[in-house]
């Protein structure tokens, strides 16, 4: 199966700017467009609260711009397609998020994101601002073995971290506490993704990688990075049975645990398929004695129009459950 190469865009060089204009116009009650491709809250959070900044390449919409809003992030710095923004923009984002109580720069672990965040923090240090810290987030069990968690990639499961951390930072907390909470959420989160198809770059018009119709790839990264290997595509239940154990065994999630569950659509999976997949996930978790606290199914961190999905689990205690249930109002994450 070939990916769709005709995109409804205008000039390939303008896609990020035009996308941001459209997004911020559509949700002007929630977000506003700053300079330097910053997506800011329409109403900044109160002074004296820790600011949350997240940068990243585009092509994953609604991530991350959809999580800017009350109870979520303060600022999203938007890069070119699948390309982390450079240090200058990150610095601008940090400044925009500063409400006087420090800023936490959240990094979804990819080499580009980490390197540019490090550069930005070095510039911050050089400027003498010490109220900025950084947390590296990862969740993808396929990208490095157990014991080397910090080498893993950040993927769809980080959604849990943004939501939990966002709720936490609405309260009167310190920068240190915010970082600790982010690490707690991260260290309880595990994900694994698969793909049935590729996607085409809106910039170059080229298909990102080759995947034959009827094949699947387990362990995909968020940018079409290939994973643990290719095989004939299986049925829904077989696919879940293959993907869930490596997630459960890694943490490990154990009988008696409670977990949030995310089934992330990488782009063009149908919800019908995702619901059918979820059904099996629920059965298997019940068998393992793991209680599902809440579930979310949909396109949260996409890879353009890739057909694929990720399973993410986050083990929660009373603190995390309360944070999960706290209200949120991002354009693409609403907790009522």
């Amino acid at each position, binding site marked *: 199966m070939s990916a769709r190469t005709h995109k409804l865009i205008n000039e390939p060089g303008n896609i990020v700017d035009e996308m941001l204009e459209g997004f911020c116009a559509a949700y002007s009650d929630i977000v506003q467009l700053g300079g330097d491709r910053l997506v800011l809250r329409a109403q900044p959070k109160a002074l004296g609260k820790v600011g949350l900044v997240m940068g990243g*390449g585009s092509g994953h919409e609604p991530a991350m711009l959809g999580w800017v809003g009350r109870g979520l992030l303060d600022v999203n710095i938007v*890069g*070119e*397609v*699948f*390309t*982390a*923004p*450079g*240090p*200058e*923009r990150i610095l601008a984002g940090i400044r925009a998020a500063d409400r006087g109580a420090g800023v936490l720069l959240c990094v979804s672990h*990819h*080499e*580009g994101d980490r*390197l*540019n965040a*490090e*550069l930005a923090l070095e510039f911050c240090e050089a400027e003498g601002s010490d109220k900025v810290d950084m947390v590296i987030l990862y969740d993808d069990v396929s*990208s490095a073995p157990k014991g080397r968690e910090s080498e893993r990639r950040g993927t769809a499961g980080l959604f849990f971290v943004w939501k939990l951390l966002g709720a936490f930072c609405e309260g009167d907390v310190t920068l240190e506490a915010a970082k600790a909470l982010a690490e707690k959420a991260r260290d309880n989160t595990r994900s694994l993704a698969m793909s049935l198809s590729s996607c085409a*770059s809106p*910039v*170059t018009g*080229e298909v*990102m990688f080759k995947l034959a119709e009827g094949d699947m790839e387990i362990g995909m*990264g968020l*940018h*079409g*990075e*290939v*994973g643990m290997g290719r095989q004939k595509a299986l049925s829904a239940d077989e696919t879940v049975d293959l993907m869930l154990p490596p997630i459960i065994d890694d943490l490990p999630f154990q009988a008696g645990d409670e977990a949030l569950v995310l089934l992330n659509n990488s782009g063009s999976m149908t919800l019908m398929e995702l619901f059918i997949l979820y059904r099996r996930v629920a059965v298997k978790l019940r068998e393992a004695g793991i209680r599902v606290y809440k579930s979310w199914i949909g396109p949260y961190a996409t890879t353009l129009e890739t057909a694929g999905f990720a399973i993410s689990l986050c083990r929660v205690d009373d603190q995390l459950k309360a944070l999960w249930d706290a209200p949120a109002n991002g354009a693409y994450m609403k907790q009522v």
Partner: protein
Amino acid sequence: MMTIGPAELAAMIEAVAQRVSIEREALNRLDAALGDGDHGTSISAAFTAAIEAIAALDQPSASDIWLAAAKALMNRMGGASGAIFGSFFLKGVAVIRGKDRLNKRDMDAVLTAGLQGVQTRGKAQVGDKTMVDALAPAVAAFARTDDFTAGWRCAAEAAGDGADSTRELIARRGRAKYLGERGSGHIDPGAMTIAILFAAIDDWWTGKA
């Protein structure tokens, strides 16, 4: 010409920008095999941004030019490669600072510092199938020579050989590392950019020297 001043540095970067822009699609194709297919587009846009930034400077010193290039590469490219190519220039800035013109020895130091910046930032060693496979031998070859003419010539050759050498390697850094064995058989696009960069400088120098 035994030394290089601000005007020559600017012309040198301009020569690189032109050549990279000509090779844009070829670089994209290399990156399509190993990564996300954008390397040519982004490195070319970044060098274009660099020459614009340099043109906007008012009576720049040599280090101003090097810093403007660093910032343009980092901020315009973004991604790992922006940080890495940018670090090459950024680490040279301190070496140049205060100098009006650079002699061959100075340029040795600038390139060596740049390579160190790249490796400190990106942690890639020779053999990891990155631009370091072209940059490290080029810097070494340059340092072994006594004058600019021989230096650029030898650096260009070493960079070209280094880029070629990446073909059979298995990537341990960058996006290509997730491809594993499947990436073997393709030249690393970043290494090819380094080869193009030194070839452009060598041509510019010979047309000029």
